[in-house]
């Protein structure tokens, strides 16, 4: 009696099982769609933000093979654009004197340490005769080392 009952139950279970199996075959995959959504959104956010993170006005720079590639040391950035316009970080300045003041102001900020180093971003097609006076002006305010910004050399 008991055995039969157990058998019956087992039989019933066996009959139910295929139904259950089909249900579970639908749900045994984790739904990764939200995960993919979040990951893709993060990816897009990073892709958009990364170029924006560049300090100083964005200009094309000469390509070099043997550059140093240290991490950002928070040094002031001076930019010379293709028309010879000077920028301190992203702010346009009218004269080398104004640039000197701008760099001094950068040094006065709490998060910037005056190490006598300035990062200089210059477009490759401008004459050296335009660049030298800027280096000279930086020298006057105590800059001992200019880091000439370059980009990774790419063979075309």
């Amino acid at each position, binding site marked *: 009696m008991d055995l039969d009952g157990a058998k019956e139950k087992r039989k019933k279970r066996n009959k139910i099982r295929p139904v259950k199996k*089909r249900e579970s*075959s*639908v749900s045994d*995959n984790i739904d*990764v*769609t939200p*995960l*993919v959504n979040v*990951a*893709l959104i*993060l*990816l897009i956010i*990073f*892709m958009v933000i*990364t170029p924006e*993170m*560049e*300090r100083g006005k964005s200009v094309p720079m*000469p390509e*070099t*093979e*043997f*550059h*140093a*590639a*240290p*991490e*950002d*040391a928070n040094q002031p950035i001076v930019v010379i654009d293709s028309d010879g316009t000077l920028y301190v970080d992203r702010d346009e300045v009218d004269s080398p004197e104004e640039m000197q003041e701008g760099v001094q102001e950068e040094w006065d900020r709490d998060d910037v340490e005056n190490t006598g180093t300035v*990062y200089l971003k*210059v*477009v*490759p*097609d*401008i*004459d*050296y*005769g*335009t*660049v*030298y*006076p800027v*280096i*000279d002006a*930086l*020298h006057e305010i105590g*800059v*001992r*080392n*200019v*880091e*000439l*910004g*370059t*980009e*990774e*050399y790419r063979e075309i």
Partner: protein
Amino acid sequence: MSQSRSRKSDINVTPLVDVVFTLLIIFLVTMPILMRNISLEIPPELDDDEVPADQSGDTVTVCARLDGTIVVAEGTAEQSVNLSELPQTIRPMLEAKTTDRVVFVDFENSLPYGDAVRVMDRLKGLRDGEDTLIDQLAVLTRDDAQMDCTSG
């Protein structure tokens, strides 16, 4: 039949997720912005009279002109080379040095900055084993900002 169809109806997104996460990690890792640069010293008070004459006689000076020639001067000896000959010309000069290997660079005013950087890149590319052969690349300070190394 119905079972196999229900299995196939899901696109396998695992490779997609793998690629996306890999890209995400790559972006996260490259986030600390690298400030690629060629470091150029500005020697203090080069035009000062305190610089002993015998020391300044040993300095190696490179002057790049617009016409593509580069004048390499060591003391009073000068020679004119082109960019590809520059490394082999300057190497023996520097290897003979016992003190800091400093190379002073100056460029003709009309020379594009990109070409000037290319010359400096070549100099930085000189190797002494693992290290760079040149300890310091220094800008040749001028008495008059308008006067480049080709004039006078």
